[in-house]
């Protein structure tokens, strides 16, 4: 290498070295500059993405694993503002294929543009069938790449983004709607178990940072989904009860029908129905179907005067105190004066000498008012409260009512008639309340309370606590809920006596509630309804109900029926009792309960 060229090489090397040093100097300068913290923050920001993971809402199953509430894929339709070619084409396609209002789409796009948005939502909760229509809008063009969220490959619609997500869906539509409740688009549960167990079902959304650098990829945390619930409801029994009650409404002309079927030993609700039913996939109809006078679930939220069905409580109290026996004789003169009022029987007639069994069998108001007098107010209301009236039963459903019970010494209650709030008066407990309360007028209960009170007759005097959730599945494990018992209002001996009396009274009466082959026990209840405008009882408007259970020697079910204002007859024995029999007739098949005779033969062998 000639010496005269050496300086050139040295010069180039020096220049390169200088550039390198300058780069290094600049790097160190930036590291130490005031903006260094900002640069670091920006690099952190772009190195990862904040992603919110919403766990899928837990499913709801019936007791046999049939899905009652699940999740379906629906779509959010959004628009990328920068890719819009023709807003009119987008509005036209959405109005034709999805049913979104044409003008509303155009207006939204304009608003997004004015706000300088990059992306905006045009519609949500769109069913897959409609998205399929949109995707097939222009089939001659090559298909979109796999995993693309573009709704269509049509260049005019390329700005539309169809992003799938899950939404609540109810495969059984209106079945058990009063028990399930529903979930609105804000993901909140309303009524029933959906609201009662909202926190458990919804799970907890979690925000995580996902690194954009593939070299720093991490395992996504396993965010547990919402817990799933297994209900005590039996889908087949529920469908049957709803079917029978719907038929009963048609045949009797009742305004509403309510039914409960419960396992008397565990408190598990096998079926619970209340009209009207709501198609849970179209829950927007709620506002048309329900109001203050039509609660979502009458079985737990509506109170009514039970009428004669309540006589079982009065009679149980008197027997439990040893004041009388089923054979005690009462001379019914057809009228009984107490507390300044006259009590008469349902037919206004005198029934002469009657045993206590006869009093229940013929449902004599005069006799029961006399029993109430024997009990006295203190004892009577002690038993009423011991049976749980005046308190919620604790059933795990949203918005349970406690009933209305006026007790001696209670502060006055304000009673208003009609919609005129000026037409109110203060009501105190008086002796006449004791007389009317003994046969279920002047107090209000929920159907659920009546069922729980009767469960004491089956469980040696102990009441069960009702529940509709049988188990919870969380993190892949199932947690079953054991049966729980409430108070013990009466002795086992009284419970057996009452069962015998209520079974005999049905048979001696040749009640329409009887089902051939099965020995049942139960009681009818016919209660006049007070006119809301005048406060006076209307003899032609009644609530008819029936509560019964069977088979008497080994009870498997309690069935409660309530018909509001039946038109064909005002009497429970002619309206509610046959409905009870219809339910039991089909229930014994669904529950595989052989007739008493066959069951006893098997037991003997």
């Amino acid at each position, binding site marked *: 290498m000639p010496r005269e060229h050496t300086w050139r090489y040295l010069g180039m090397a020096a220049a390169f070295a200088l550039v390198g040093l300058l780069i290094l100097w600049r790097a160190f300068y930036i590291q130490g500059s005031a903006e260094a913290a900002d640069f670091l923050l920006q690099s952190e920001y772009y190195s990862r993405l904040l992603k919110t993971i919403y766990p899928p809402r837990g499913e709801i199953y019936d007791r046999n694993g049939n899905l009652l509430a*699940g999740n379906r894929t629906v779509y959010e339709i959004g628009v990328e503002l920068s890719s819009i070619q023709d807003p009119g084409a987008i509005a036209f396609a959405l109005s034709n294929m999805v049913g979104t209002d044409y003008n509303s789409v155009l207006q939204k796009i304009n608003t997004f543009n004015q706000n300088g948005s990059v992306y905006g939502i045009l519609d949500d909760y769109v069913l897959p069938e409609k998205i399929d229509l949109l995707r097939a809008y222009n089939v001659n063009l090559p298909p979109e790449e796999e995993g693309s969220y573009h709704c269509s490959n049509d260049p005019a619609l390329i700005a539309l983004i169809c992003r799938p997500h*899950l939404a609540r869906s109810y495969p059984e*539509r209106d079945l058990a709607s009063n028990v399930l409740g529903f979930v609105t688009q804000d993901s909140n549960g309303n009524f029933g178990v959906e609201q009662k167990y909202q926190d458990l079902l919804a799970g907890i959304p979690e925000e995580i940072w996902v690194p954009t650098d*593939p070299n720093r990829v991490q395992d996504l945390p396993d965010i547990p989904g919402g817990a799933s619930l297994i209900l005590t409801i039996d889908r087949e029994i529920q469908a049957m009860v709803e079917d029978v009650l719907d038929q009963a409404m048609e045949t009797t002309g009742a305004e509403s029908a309510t039914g409960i079927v419960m396992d008397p030993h565990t408190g598990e609700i096998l079926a619970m129905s209340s009209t009207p039913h709501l198609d849970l996939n179209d829950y927007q109809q709620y506002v048309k179907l329900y109001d203050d006078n039509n609660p979502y679930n009458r079985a737990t939220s509506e109170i009514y005067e039970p009428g004669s069905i309540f006589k079982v409580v009065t009679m149980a109290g008197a027997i439990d105190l040893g004041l009388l026996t089923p054979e005690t004789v009462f001379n019914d003169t057809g009228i009984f004066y107490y507390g300044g009022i006259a009590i008469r029987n349902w037919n206004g007639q005198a029934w002469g000498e009657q045993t206590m069994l006869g009093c229940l069998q013929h449902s004599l108001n005069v006799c029961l008012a006399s029993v109430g007098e024997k009990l006295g107010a203190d004892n009577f209301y002690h038993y009423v409260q011991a049976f749980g009236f005046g308190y919620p039963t604790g059933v795990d459903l949203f918005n349970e009512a406690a009933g209305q019970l006026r007790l001696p010494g209670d502060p006055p209650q304000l009673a208003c008639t009609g919609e005129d709030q000026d037409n109110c008066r203060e009501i105190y407990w008086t002796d006449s309340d004791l007389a009317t309360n003994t046969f279920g007028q002047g107090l209000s209960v929920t159907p659920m309370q009546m069922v729980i009170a009767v469960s004491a007759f089956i469980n040696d005097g102990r009441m069960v606590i009702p529940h509709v959730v049988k188990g919870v599945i969380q993190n892949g*494990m*199932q*947690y079953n809920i054991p049966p729980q018992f409430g108070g013990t209002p009466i002795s086992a001996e009284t419970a057996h006596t009452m069962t015998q009396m209520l079974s005999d009274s049905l048979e001696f009466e040749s009640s329409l509630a009887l089902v051939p082959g099965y020995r049942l026990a139960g009681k009818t209840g016919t209660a006049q309804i007070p006119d809301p405008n005048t406060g006076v009882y209307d003899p032609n408007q009644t609530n008819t109900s029936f509560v019964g259970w069977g088979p008497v020697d080994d009870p498997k079910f309690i069935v409660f029926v309530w018909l509001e204002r039946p038109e064909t007859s005002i009497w429970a024995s002619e309206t509610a009792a046959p409905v009870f029999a219809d339910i039991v007739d089909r229930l014994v*098949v669904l529950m595989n309960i052989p007739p008493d005779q066959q069951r006893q033969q098997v037991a003997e062998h």
Partner: protein
Amino acid sequence: MLKRSKEFIQAYKEAPWRRQMQMIGLVATGVIVLALIAGVYLNITARSATTGRLVQQLQSDRAEMEQSIEDLQTQLAFILSVEQMQKRSSDLGFAPVSPAAIMYLAVAEYQGRALGADLAPRAGSEFGAAPTLPAAYTDSLFDWLAALFADLGGY
């Protein structure tokens, strides 16, 4: 004397071209080693990035599949709903049975229809959850070497 010693050194001195060759060889070796290291590094990094992207894609696929499973379960439940099943059974000529038409037979030790079957293992019998992403996807080369040496050191 001095001249002779210079001649002696000159005679035994390594030829300049040989020293240049040695220098070139040394530099070339260094460059090759550096190139090898860079190549291995690039290869590993590229594979790691590809695998990372694959993992991200699989995570996305898993989320989509979980969503799809939920959707299909619900669609299946629609098909098997009471209303649909009653219609199908009715179309097939079946009708609800009345209690009078049923003949019950006593079967020894038969416990009856099992109601309320468990849908998941009962609490108390749980198994440990398996990791969803193996260590091979998250370990760096150095982690792997460290683990390897640790394993070898154990023997």
